[in-house]
């Protein structure tokens, strides 16, 4: 039987493809059950259905694949029919379950795609089950078929002719669509959609979920709005300011407004798309045609700050009109479909009764859904009952079960608010029910800390409490010393009303003083030794302190005040005469324990008042949470003015443990950390992630530290991972979060290997404290949604010293439990699915630097006091973020990792380099030549040179060995040259010696005494060792060639390496360019390469490169430019002819032992291997497979060996790369002043960590539209740009902007200044080729390569271009 095959429509094709991708999943089954209340005559029903099959082609449409293309055709007859079942023995519930299972069958596409069953429940009730594959149906089709069945059944019963017109064929639509597609307007419409989705940048992340679904499994969670709510919605829809063309369109607009708002509230995103199916039945007859008509088009949201439901609706109205106008048949595309992951399906069809018998329809969800649609929302009232149903199909991969149940409730909150008051702010409704009053329970009774210490002293009087260097104190001794101190303080009038400042370094005296103060009931104010005197004076005055404890070294800081003090270095005999007994004051729970000053926004620090109850709440919790069988032994090694240090100070002393004091070095606390680790006496430690970055990679297997509490700043998972690996397995790492205002720590959790997000979650609230995630309207947000963290509980500070306004602004009444205050942290967090808080940044300008908290305005205010500074802006600049290793993906084609700078992957996972290469692949081919040509070149001068025809660079690896053998095969006189860089492996050397003797070739090892210096320089400049090594080889071999009059040096660079070092895309832009032009450019670049300033130029004699003639006398030939030998062929040849053996002693596929240091440093500083790029080119050129490449670039590096080699050559492996990632940068206007001067000025008032590392003079500060300083702009400079002394001036004018744009692209900068120096920014000869080629392309000139080094700034180069152009114009005149 000959069939008429038809192609599939776009909608059919996407369903077909989706089904092919999920062959076992019934994700496109559209099943309905029609629950008919009344008697059905089985025979008549069956006859009617058979007639329906005859009339409706969709029930006879089948699919097949011809030549790989799916096609559809219509069978003339149909072997399928309706099944009749009697389920009168089953309960309706069982029947419904049966239908659910039945809806999940897989259709055979070569047979009609329906499944129809008539089920008898009893004489007076029947279910008609009709399941049709989406390929041939849609919602309208279901009603068409249902109504036809009713008509046919009726006519059979009555014996009359059915009152139905012919059923139009789907074919008519195909013809119509084909005509439409050719209309000129179609292109306009296609462009319209493309432009529209191009404006979208990031996919919608619902509840912060970034995952893409891998399963089609989805649950349907349903919501009935109820008759009352549905009516109110319809009433709203009839209001004139709400109304659109029709009631259905108005309802659609209202639901779009609601779902937009809902999605905006649970994603935080302003601009995103959802898909909405258009019924696409534009004519009357199409409205009667069964078949898949619908196409899905995107609707875009556009939220602004002050939106109300009404303002959103107004925008939605425009959007849907625009949508309807452009929703033309055949205009959807896979590209459009990828722009959304949510679908709103508003269905305005209904099923009437069945031949006068009441009927209830139900759409049965097959529990599968297109995985591209994470959330589908269907809105319909198919039974015309006046009760609108909203069904959510939710992908199981994306949404876990409890969230699936919450989603409809969250949506309903939004919808209800819209119905309630359309003019209210969209942020008004809370998405979740008000939390019940918080029930806060402290973990145990509040016994003041000092009492707890005294109890401990009674319990374990002889245990060691405190040690420092060689001395130690038992609990009893420490307590007695503290008692003496307390008695002394009493004589100075100190009591529970008073405050005592302690301005001391870390020392046993500091501990004794703090304990003594607490005994009197007074509070202490720790002021660390590194605070500048101006700041110390401010704190002393501001805090109303009554007495100061200090020492000789620090006493100068306090002389400006009149407050009495004790210098502990003075004669202390009076103190020693005090009694060793003391009756401790009963400190009230709300009385102050201490006051800590943190950075304030006004230029002065602010004092945070902490009560005894607050500190007690924290320590009681910490005592039990961190408890192990061992007593705590903590080091005191962090700044005493830092609230993080409170843990180390008190936790051991109230638990019978030991506190070991480490004194301060002159420059910060970091050195004492090394001492702590080296001495290995402590078992617990409290520190910051920046501290951990310092010890990353060190072998700590033998450390006694088993409890590590990390706090103070964002804790990255990759640091946690590497620390966990370098310590023994039983180390427990905790992340503890807490602003000073909530006393040390109030949220905490243990790091586990399951944590794979970028940062370790901060955990859950500690006992007695509660964290709430609220939006700006104080609404609690659902889990997953970002909001500001608010804290309540016993650990809250009493407020700020003397800052009543700030206190009432930050400590507000808890709306959920007015008994408590609530502290607004300014920290952005969200709850993950395990109910842990995740820290996501700040809402304001407060920043954390190395664990220290600071307000940028604090720095700015202090800088403005300098006479030369007119205005200033201070920003934190973070260097390129290193993508954590587990998030890196590799190009599916070449293996290039996604953390390679500026990499872009398309939807197929292919990188931009591969895609670009497709465009000039053919062009690039012409660069490569044949072995024949190589032979011609090399033999052309055979015999002319007195000694040798060429030098062959021999590393001993397979590639260079192969070359050597081939050259000898050509009958050439070859001199083999090897650079002995000191790190060639033994086996590689054996290889070399064996090869040269077997091939009977002369061979020399070149060396230089400067090799190590060259390595170190190369590591600094290029983060690898190879660049330095290569340049040395070129230089030394050129020297030999000149001396021995050898015309050629043959290199063994791979084709991949050409693209790393010589070839760039730009060289192939000009299709007509001759290869010799390319060669000239490359030679030009090589001359420049030898002029670059580096260790080779400095240490080795490179004077010959000053003469152009040298490049004529000695030419470099890249062997693999001419040879395209496969790896197999090469290895076979080497084995048979040369006896080459792969070295096994380098641990990798190289001959060089130092190579791994280069890879290690490169990976550490840049995140990816230096081989990633050249190897990706080897894959592209077909010389390596992706798998081989990935194996090599992901090889594990032996860190110990790397460190040993680094020490050997004198390279300091930086442990601080983590620290260097954030820099405090100050921009200022006024008079240009030296950085040292400004830093000195700030140091008078600010601690060291608040002094910017860079000061950059600008003529004026960039402003935003609103006239504020545009800090985003200021954050764009890289550290090398900041390093220069030149002022920042953005490019101005066409030419400067053109060059600036090109520089940014080629040098991968976010921002350029016209005074930036090309070389200082890392511009090398290859970059010069690219920049020059692009400029020449744009201006249609032929500027020589060298000009960029002659005019290395944008301003100079722009001048040069302008002068040249003017000159040319003059000449023409």
């Amino acid at each position: 039987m000959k069939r008429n095959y038809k192609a599939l429509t776009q909608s059919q094709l996407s369903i077909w493809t989706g089904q092919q991708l999920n062959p076992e999943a019934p994700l496109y089954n559209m099943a309905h059950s029609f629950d008919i209340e009344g008697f059905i005559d089985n025979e008549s029903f069956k006859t009617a259905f058979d007639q329906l099959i005859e009339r409706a082609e969709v029930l006879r449409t089948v699919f097949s694949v011809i030549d790989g293309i799916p096609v559809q055709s219509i069978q003339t007859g149909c072997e399928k029919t309706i099944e009749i079942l009697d389920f009168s023995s089953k309960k309706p519930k069982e029947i419904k379950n049966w239908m659910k299972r039945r809806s999940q069958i897989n259709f055979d596409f070569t047979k009609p795609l329906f499944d129809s069953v008539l089920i008898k429940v009893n004489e007076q009730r029947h279910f008609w089950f009709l399941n049709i594959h989406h390929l041939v149906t849609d919602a309208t089709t279901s009603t068409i078929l249902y109504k036809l069945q009713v008509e046919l059944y009726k006519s059979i019963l009555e014996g009359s002719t059915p009152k139905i017109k012919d059923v139009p064929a789907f074919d008519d639509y195909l013809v119509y669509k084909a005509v439409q597609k050719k209309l000129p307007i179609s292109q306009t419409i296609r462009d319209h959609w493309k432009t529209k989705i191009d404006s979208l940048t990031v996919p919608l992340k619902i509840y912060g979920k970034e995952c893409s679904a891998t399963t089609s499994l989805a649950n349907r969670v349903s919501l009935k709005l109820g008759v009352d709510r549905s009516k109110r919605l319809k009433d709203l829809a009839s209001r004139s300011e709400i109304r659109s063309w029709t009631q259905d369109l108005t309802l659609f607009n209202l639901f779009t407004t609601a779902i937009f708002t809902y999605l905006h509230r649970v994603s935080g995103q302003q601009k995103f798309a959802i898909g909405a199916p258009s019924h696409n039945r534009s004519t009357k007859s199409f409205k009667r045609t069964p078949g898949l008509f619908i196409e899905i088009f995107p609707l875009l949201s556009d939220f602004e700050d002050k939106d109300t439901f009404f303002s959103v609706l107004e925008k939605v109205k425009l959007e849907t009109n625009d949508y309807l106008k452009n929703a033309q048949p055949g205009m959807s595309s896979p590209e459009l479909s990828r722009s959304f992951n949510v679908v709103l399906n508003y269905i305005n069809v209904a099923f009437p009764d069945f031949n006068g018998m009441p009927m209830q329809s139900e759409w049965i969800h097959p529990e599968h859904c297109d995985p591209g649609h994470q959330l589908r929302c269907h809105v319909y009232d198919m039974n015309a009952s006046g009760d609108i149903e909203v069904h959510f199909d939710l992908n199981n991969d994306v949404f876990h079960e409890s969230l699936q149940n919450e989603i409809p409730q969250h949506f309903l909150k939004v919808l209800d608010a819209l119905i309630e008051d359309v003019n209210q702010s969209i942020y008004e409704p809370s998405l979740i029910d008000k939390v019940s009053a918080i029930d806060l329970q402290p973990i145990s009774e509040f016994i003041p800390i000092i009492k707890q210490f005294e109890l401990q002293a009674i319990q374990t009087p002889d245990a060691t409490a405190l040690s420092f260097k060689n001395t130690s104190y038992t609990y009893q001794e420490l307590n007695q010393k503290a008692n003496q101190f307390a008695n002394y303080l009493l004589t100075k009038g100190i009591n529970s009303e008073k405050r005592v400042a302690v301005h001391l370094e870390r020392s046993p005296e500091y501990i004794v003083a703090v304990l003594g103060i607490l005994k009197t009931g007074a509070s202490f104010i720790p002021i660390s030794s590194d605070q500048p005197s101006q700041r110390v004076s401010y704190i002393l005055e501001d805090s109303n302190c009554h007495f100061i404890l200090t020492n000789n070294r620090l006493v100068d800081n306090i002389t400006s005040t009149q407050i009495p003090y004790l210098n502990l270095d003075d004669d202390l005999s009076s103190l020693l005469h005090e009694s060793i007994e003391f009756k401790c004051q009963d400190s009230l729970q709300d009385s102050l324990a201490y006051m800590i000053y943190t950075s304030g926004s006004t230029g002065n620090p602010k004092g945070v008042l902490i009560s005894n109850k607050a500190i007690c709440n924290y320590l009681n919790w910490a005592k039990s949470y961190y408890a192990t069988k061992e007593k705590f032994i903590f080091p005191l090694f962090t700044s005493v003015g830092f609230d993080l240090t409170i843990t180390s100070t008190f936790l051991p002393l109230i638990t019978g443990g030991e506190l070991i004091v480490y004194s301060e070095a002159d420059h910060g606390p970091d050195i004492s950390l090394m001492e702590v680790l080296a001495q290995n006496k402590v078992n617990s430690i409290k520190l910051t992630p920046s501290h951990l970055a310092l010890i990353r990679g060190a072998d700590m297997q033998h450390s006694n530290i088993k409890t590590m509490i990390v706090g103070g700043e964002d804790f990255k998972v990759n640091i946690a991972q590497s620390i966990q690996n370098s310590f023994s397995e039983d180390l427990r790492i905790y992340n503890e979060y807490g602003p000073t205002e909530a006393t040390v720590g109030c949220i905490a959790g243990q790091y586990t290997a399951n944590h794979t997000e970028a940062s370790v979650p901060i955990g859950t609230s500690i006992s007695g404290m509660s964290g709430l995630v609220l939006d700006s309207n104080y609404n609690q947000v659902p889990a997953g949604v970002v909001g500001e963290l608010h804290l309540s509980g016993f650990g809250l500070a009493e407020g700020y010293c003397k800052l009543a306004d700030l206190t009432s602004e930050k400590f507000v009444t808890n709306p959920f439990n007015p008994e408590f205050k609530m502290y607004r942290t300014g920290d952005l967090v969200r709850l993950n699915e395990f109910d842990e808080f995740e820290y996501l940044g700040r809402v304001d300008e407060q920043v954390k630097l190395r664990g220290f908290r600071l307000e940028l305005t604090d720095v700015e205010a202090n800088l403005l006091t300098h006479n030369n500074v007119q205005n200033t802006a201070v920003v934190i600049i973070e260097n390129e973020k290193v993508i954590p290793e587990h998030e890196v993906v590799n190009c599916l084609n070449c293996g290039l990792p996604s953390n390679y700078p500026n990499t872009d992957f398309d939807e197929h996972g292919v990188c931009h380099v591969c895609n670009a290469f497709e465009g000039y692949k053919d062009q690039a081919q012409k660069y490569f030549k044949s072995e024949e040509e190589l032979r011609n070149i090399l033999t052309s001068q055979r015999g002319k040179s007195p000694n040798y025809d060429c030098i062959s660079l021999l590393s001993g690896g397979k590639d260079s060995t192969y070359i050597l053998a081939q050259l000898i095969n050509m009958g050439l006189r070859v001199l083999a040259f090897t650079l002995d860089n000191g790190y060639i492996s033994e086996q590689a050397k054996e290889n070399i010696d064996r090869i040269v003797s077997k091939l009977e070739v002369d061979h020399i090892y070149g060396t230089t005494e400067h090799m190590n210096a060259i390595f170190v320089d190369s590591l600094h400049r290029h983060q690898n060792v190879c660049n330095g090594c290569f340049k040395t080889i070129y230089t030394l071999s050129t020297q030999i060639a000149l001396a021995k009059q050898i015309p050629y040096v043959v290199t063994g660079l791979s084709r991949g390496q050409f693209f790393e070092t010589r070839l760039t895309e730009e060289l192939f832009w000009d299709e007509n360019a001759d290869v010799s032009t390319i060669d000239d450019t490359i030679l030009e670049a090589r001359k420049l390469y030898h002029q670059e300033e580096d260790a080779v130029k400095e240490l080795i004699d490179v004077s010959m490169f000053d003469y152009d003639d040298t490049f004529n006398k000695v030419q470099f030939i890249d062997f693999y430019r001419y040879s395209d030998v496969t790896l197999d062929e090469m290895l076979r040849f080497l084995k048979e002819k040369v006896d080459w053996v792969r070295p096994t002693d380098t641990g990798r596929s190289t001959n060089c032992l130092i190579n791994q240091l280069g890879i290690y440093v490169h990976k550490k500083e840049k995140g990816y291997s230096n081989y990633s790029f050249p190897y990706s080119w080897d894959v592209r050129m077909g010389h390596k497979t992706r798998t081989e490449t990935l194996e090599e670039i992901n090889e594990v590096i032996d860190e110990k060996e790397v460190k040993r080699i680094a020490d050997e050559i004198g390279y300091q492996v930086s442990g601080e790369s983590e620290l260097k990632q954030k820099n405090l940068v100050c921009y200022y206007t006024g008079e240009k002043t030296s950085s040292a001067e400004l830093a000195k000025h700030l140091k008078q008032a600010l601690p060291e960590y608040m002094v910017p590392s860079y000061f950059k003079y600008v003529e004026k500060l960039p402003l935003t539209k609103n006239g504020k300083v545009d800090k985003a702009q200021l954050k764009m400079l890289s550290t090398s740009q900041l390093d220069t002394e030149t002022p920042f001036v953005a490019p101005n004018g066409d030419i400067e902007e053109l060059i600036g744009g090109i520089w940014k692209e080629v040098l991968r900068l976010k921002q350029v200044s016209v005074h930036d120096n090309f070389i200082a920014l890392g511009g090398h000869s290859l970059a010069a080729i690219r920049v020059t080629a692009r400029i020449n392309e744009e201006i249609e000139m032929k500027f020589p390569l060298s000009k960029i080094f002659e005019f290395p700034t944008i301003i100079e180069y722009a001048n040069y271009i302008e002068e040249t152009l003017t000159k040319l114009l003059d000449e023409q005149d």
Partner: protein
Amino acid sequence: MNEKLIKYISEQLLNNELEDDLEAEDDLLGDGILDSLGMMKLILYIETEYEMKVPPQDMIIENFMTVQHISNYLAKQRS
């Protein structure tokens, strides 16, 4: 103008399937002759045919209720 619009609506959007001929006074949306998709198709047709843009604020029932309304609106626009 009425005729041209009636012709387009009858032939392109209704396939001449209306029981009685379309009259200039028939309520296009209220009588279910067109749905909103059809209405926007009509607007697209008008925009192309008369080389004009119907601004969003003009897309209201008052301007597009019947063919007569549309003609009046267009006449006003083009005067």
